[in-house]
């Protein structure tokens, strides 16, 4: 085992604003191949799998990262290699990985163009949280059409505010909506446009928490719900409920044990600061809540990806093509 630190490499790569987590993971894995002293394919794949596992364990939200790692490792195991020379093969694999990342960086533009045709003049769009591909689509639409955008605040991370600020900076009329006010706003909206953490085999969507409820509200109001996803976010996973997501753990949404009232008073009495022991702060709430949720495919109108506009069912075709022989 080499002393290559994959997680540090990964974090260094992520500092590049343009790189999304699956691409950073793929690049980190190619660097791992460079450093690797493995002499056979079997050893190399084992090393990469260990590296992917390490990334998975150390990242707070590994879902889309896993999608990238699985794609790359599956590609490597299936790569047809006529050359008998293993080190040549390794350079070829590194080249492939790097070339893919360069190519994949153009996907957002491709997706934006696909989605653009669905945006009519004077549209009111609802989006959720912050997504680079959604931003690119909105910016492109703004150049050629009139659009206005509602952005949800997207607690707990509050990334919706980042979206709103960026949109406002380029002059797109924009309004931040409370996560709890989506149902209030939905009648003013023409369609919903969200990015994604991953698109799974059922065609369902994993995205920043709150996407699911927006999709449910959009369905109830009969508004289209479009998801944008680069094809490296297609993830071989088949969750049947929220609790099947790899990000779920028993600590999420746990009930706090009520303390007997007398006891808490005694322990707190010495404390100089007069804080209410029952007070709840935002941080506690965030810790007790999920980062991502799962949206069922029947709530999604279309998935725009670099391989085309797909019905949710269409996603599985690609996953089966890659992962089922």
């Amino acid at each position, binding site marked *: 085992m080499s002393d290559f630190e994959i997680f540090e490499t990964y974090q260094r790569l992520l500092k590049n604003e343009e790189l999304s987590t699956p691409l950073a993971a793929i690049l980190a894995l190619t660097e791992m191949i460079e450093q690797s002293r493995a002499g056979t394919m079997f050893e190399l794949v084992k090393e990469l799998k260990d590296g992917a596992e390490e990334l998975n364990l150390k990242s707070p939200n590994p879902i889309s990262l896993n999608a990238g790692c699985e794609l790359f490792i599956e590609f490597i195991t299936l790569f*047809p290699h006529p050359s008998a020379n293993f080190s040549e093969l390794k350079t070829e694999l590194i080249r492939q*990985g790097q070339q893919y990342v360069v190519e994949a960086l153009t996907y957002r533009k491709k997706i934006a163009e696909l989605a653009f*045709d*669905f945006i009519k003049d004077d549209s009111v769009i609802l989006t959720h949280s912050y997504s680079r591909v959604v931003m690119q689509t909105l910016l492109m639409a703004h150049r050629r059409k009139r659009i206005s955008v509602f952005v949800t605040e997207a607690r707990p991370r509050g990334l919706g505010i980042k979206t709103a600020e960026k949109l406002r900076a380029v002059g797109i009329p924009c309004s931040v909506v409370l996560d709890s006010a989506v149902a209030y706003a939905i009648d003013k909206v023409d369609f919903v446009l969200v990015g994604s953490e991953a698109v799974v085999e059922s065609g369902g969507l994993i995205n920043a928490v709150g996407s699911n409820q927006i999709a449910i509200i959009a369905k109830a109001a009969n508004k289209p719900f479009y998801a944008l996803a680069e094809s490296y976010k*297609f993830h071989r996973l088949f969750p049947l409920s929220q609790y099947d997501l790899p990000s779920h753990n028993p600590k999420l949404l746990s009930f706090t044990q009520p303390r007997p009232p007398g006891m808490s008073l005694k322990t707190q009495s010495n404390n100089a600061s007069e804080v209410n022991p029952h007070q709840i702060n935002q941080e506690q709430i965030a810790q007790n809540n999920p980062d991502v949720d799962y949206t069922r495919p029947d709530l999604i109108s279309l998935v725009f990806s670099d*391989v085309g506009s797909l*019905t949710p069912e*269409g996603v599985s075709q690609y996953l*089966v*093509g890659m992962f089922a022989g």
Partner: protein
Amino acid sequence: MASDPQMLANQRIVEDLASRLRRRQVVGSRQAALETLLVLRQVVSRARFSNVDQLVDVIRSVGRRLVDAQPKGRAHSFLYEYADFNHGSFITGTSEHSVGNTVRKVLHHIREEYHTATEGSTPAPAPTFSIAKFVSQGQPRKQQTVQKNDAAKVPLKENDPDDPDSFARTLKPVLMEAIQDVFDELETVYDNISKNAKDHIHSDEIILTLGKSKTVESFLKAAAHHRNYTVIVAETAPSFVFSSFHDHGLTRHFTRYGGREMAKSLSSAGISTFLVPDSSIYALMSRVNKVILGAHAILANGGMFATSGALLAATAARAYSTPVVVCAGQFKLTPLWNLYHEYGALDFGDPSSVLGFEEGDLVDKVDVVNPYYDYVQPELLDAFITNYGDHPPSSIYRLLKETYDDEDNEL
């Protein structure tokens, strides 16, 4: 180039069809597809080209000309404001989508023939494989089986400076054959759709249909050979059909109310038939076992354009959970996603069939709109029966991918 007599002859036949399309002298999506194919056959047989790109360009420009020639719907006043923004490339107010589809299909076949023809002659390019390809085409093993070397192949030389026509001469026969295949497919499309009719209609069922669709008509008649069942036909006012086509599209007979024609035809074939007014569709729906509709064009999302009234029938069917089945030939598959022209494909018929001049006092005071088609969302449809098998709306996009090349979606 334009002085070339062959080119001029090509231009003439293209313009001829274009003007007939514009005057609506070619009506019906199959008819339009057939006529387009005839023109393309002429064009290919006369075209001069020394590589495949030139040929594709020629066909594309013909396709563009034919698609642009078609009547664009014009609506009155209140519809205008919606119609206004339809200048994007996606907005096709064309009435016959099958024209573009046929061009796309021919292009697809040309490329296919070209690839099989060149495979043996040029050394197969080193199998390039990349992650992007892996994502879009799946695992590598499958695609490698395609590479077969045929030693007996005539060498195909592109851009031969000594003999620029040699490429065309070798390729033309296979291309004509390919076009003939498309032609044969169109000729037999009704039979192929009706092949499994008896599996879709059971004895003693009550079927509701709408207007006059040749496809549905032959489907129902085919089922009647095996089953005893009842058809309810909505008269579909004020739709019209052209009842005779024998005279090369020039002498046409308008018959108002396609549903009446349909009922006449079905009952003369011995099917027990009821003719009902459109307004009673909802009321009758509780007795209906299945709704069978024809389509004008099937869109990539699994929705369709169909005779006005189809949306009414499909919505009523949804309320009673009655299955809705659509019969249509593959040439109606259109690589468009319905966007925001949900008010009837922007194609409007003659208002006089709604309100004639005999009601002169009124004609001044109201705008009359008579859209040909309804857009029916995929959620309201259960299955498409095509000559390429039966499909749910959600897999139409896939059928499209197999039928046309992505680069031709916009001609």
